[in-house]
């Protein structure tokens, strides 16, 4: 027990997720032929990239005790307009297109953030509203045209397949590697930078944070801009993966991203959770989703029901185990349990 306690609780949570994933993979490999073969691994990892990026953005927002329900619409809008941009400028540098998508997403996130942080409108209301508004704009703008993949430059269409290196049949694709690196970088930023500590502080107790001279509004604004930017990136990935973008692109992704974050151990009340956790959560959710599709004899209609049970189980276990561990940890270590990475010795940074 005490060895376990040497880990910080959020690491424990992440490890337990890894364990659950391992168990799931084991069980499915018994049920499904060729499960551990390359093709399924590639399927899961490629579809994971989009969900993981969205889950990371959602995590940032949830950490500040808010929520962003508009990410699905942001993905739709950025995928579509980036597609239009590429149709019109097929020869421009690739990075420009990616930057374009991220910038648009960030702009949409900026609107959300301003309304939440400065106009004091609760996040659920703002993002419910922008969910509808952004989608409405997209449908009106599109004029029923669909973005088709044949107008897109080759590098975009081929991106999902480009592989960095392979372990036998298991490809480590560029997109996947990039996503993982991004998540790790975000994790380090959250853990190491002053800004990261602020995010946790605001989520844990906004009033106390304010009194500690944390610029609460800017932190919240930043979280929403980041969420929007990441959603923009996800929109770009979406475009490159599916090629054909209809006006419904991205419908429903917001709930998926919240589910992934929650399964990944992010506390919906803010103040605790990690982006690596949400990556693992996204992995588990995607894994289950795609695996259930392939179990012979199991009708696809069981998928959602199982997914619902999974989310519930994750949160319940989280809660029960967390409470148990928390009590143990508090007793064993004699100091307040972690949630906010431990402050540096001395003054609170202003």
């Amino acid at each position: 027990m005490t060895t376990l306690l040497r880990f910080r609780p959020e690491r424990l949570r992440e490890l337990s997720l890894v364990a659950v994933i391992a168990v799931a993979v084991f069980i499915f490999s018994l049920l499904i032929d060729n499960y551990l073969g390359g093709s399924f691994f590639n399927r899961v990892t490629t579809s994971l990239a989009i969900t993981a990026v969205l889950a990371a953005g959602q995590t940032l927002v949830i950490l500040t005790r808010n929520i962003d329900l508009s990410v699905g619409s942001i993905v739709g809008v950025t995928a579509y307009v980036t597609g239009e941009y590429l149709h019109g400028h097929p020869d421009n540098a690739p990075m420009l297109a990616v930057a374009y998508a991220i910038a648009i997403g960030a702009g949409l996130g900026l609107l959300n953030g301003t309304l939440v942080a400065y106009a004091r409108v609760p996040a659920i209301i703002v993002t419910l509203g922008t969910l509808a508004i952004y989608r409405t704009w997209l449908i009106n703008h599109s004029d029923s045209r669909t973005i088709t993949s044949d107008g897109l430059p080759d590098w975009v269409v081929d991106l999902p397949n480009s592989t960095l290196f392979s372990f036998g049949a298991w490809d480590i694709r560029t997109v996947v590697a990039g996503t993982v690196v991004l998540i790790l970088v975000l994790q380090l930023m959250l853990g190491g930078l002053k800004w990261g500590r602020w995010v946790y502080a605001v989520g844990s107790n906004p009033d106390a944070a304010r009194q500690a001279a944390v610029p609460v509004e800017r932190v919240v604004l930043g979280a929403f801009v980041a969420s929007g930017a990441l959603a923009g990136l996800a929109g770009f990935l979406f475009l490159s993966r599916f090629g054909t973008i209809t006006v419904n692109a991205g419908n429903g992704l917001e709930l998926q991203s919240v589910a992934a974050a929650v399964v990944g151990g992010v506390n919906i009340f803010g103040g605790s959770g990690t982006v690596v956790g949400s990556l693992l959560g996204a992995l588990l959710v995607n894994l289950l989703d795609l695996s259930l599709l392939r179990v012979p004899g199991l009708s696809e209609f069981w998928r959602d029901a199982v997914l619902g049970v999974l989310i519930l189980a994750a949160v319940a276990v989280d809660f029960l185990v967390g409470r148990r561990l928390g009590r143990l940890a508090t007793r064993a270590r004699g100091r307040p349990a972690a949630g906010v990475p431990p402050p540096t010795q001395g003054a609170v940074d202003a």
Partner: protein
Amino acid sequence: MHVERRRRGNLWILAAVMVALLFAVAGCGDDDDAPADDGGTSAETGGGGASGPVKFEPGKEFRSVFIPKQTGIAVFDQANQGAKKAASELGVDAARFLGPSSPDACVSGQIDTVTNAATQGVNGVMISNCAGDQIEPAVRQASEAGATVVSWDSPIPSGEGESLFVAQVDFDETGKVMADLALDVLGEEGGEYAILSAAPDAANQNAWIKAHKEAIKDPKYQNLKLVDTVYGNDDSEKSYDEALSLVDKHPNLKLIMAPTTVGIAAAGKAMTDEKLCDKVKVSGLGLPDEMKEYTLSGCAPKFALWSFEDLGYLAFYAAYGIATEQIEAKEGAQFQAGDLGEYTIEKDPTRDNGLRVLMGPFTVYDKSNVEGE
């Protein structure tokens, strides 16, 4: 206590205002949901021509709505273009193009639109039905209010409430065309194939699939083995994922047949992305624009479709003719649909009840003509 009393006072004021509003409305509103008068019903040209196909007189009063399964989808937009063209030829206002904005909202969206149309007293409702039987009560209400309901692309399964179904192709024949496409792509040795459809309750796709399953009973197709049917909901992502799952579940799969333009494009991309085109081909009903690159690359060597624009055009003509009483919706009636030609109303052999007008043939696309569009 003091506050309570004030609050109660406010509550009463609000209640009074609302009641007053209600009375005002009930009082001054017309109590009639009387059938819309299509004025100017000329007495000439009764239906059922022993005198040959009826050529419609333009310019009569005709207000209509054109309802797709979903707005924002290219094929439905094309159909609307056709309807607009017909409207300008007939010298009437174009139909208003209204419909659900997302597949989720399909049922309630179409019901709302049809009901509102009834309230507005339009005399023509042209609908591509995505709500199966659930649209029936609304459609019945509309036709009781005097509107002519004509379905196109996807009928009302029971035929209740609609005057006519404008079929793009014969639904039974669609099944056979799908079988022929499969035979063509898989060759004499045949093999395993699966169907990737649209929404599980889409009347047209379900009818085609049913007809297809009947068609492949013919010994000509004996080597074709249909192993699975999955639903992509006309959603690119879902269709993409389902296409991949088909391949994973059935390792010997050689063809994905998708009788839906969204599904076939998604399947084409999925196979191309995973570099499976050599092993698994894609066919079905697709738009040349969206399928061009897959046909040229050999992934989707052959597929079929019809002209949605012509379909909308024909539906508009038919609705106009029936609504303005220049033709009756009964078996044997014939009419001229602008420059598309002459059409006869017949009993729909693919449903238990209902009449239909059959538009025309398929166009089969392959490398030679896919770029021509």
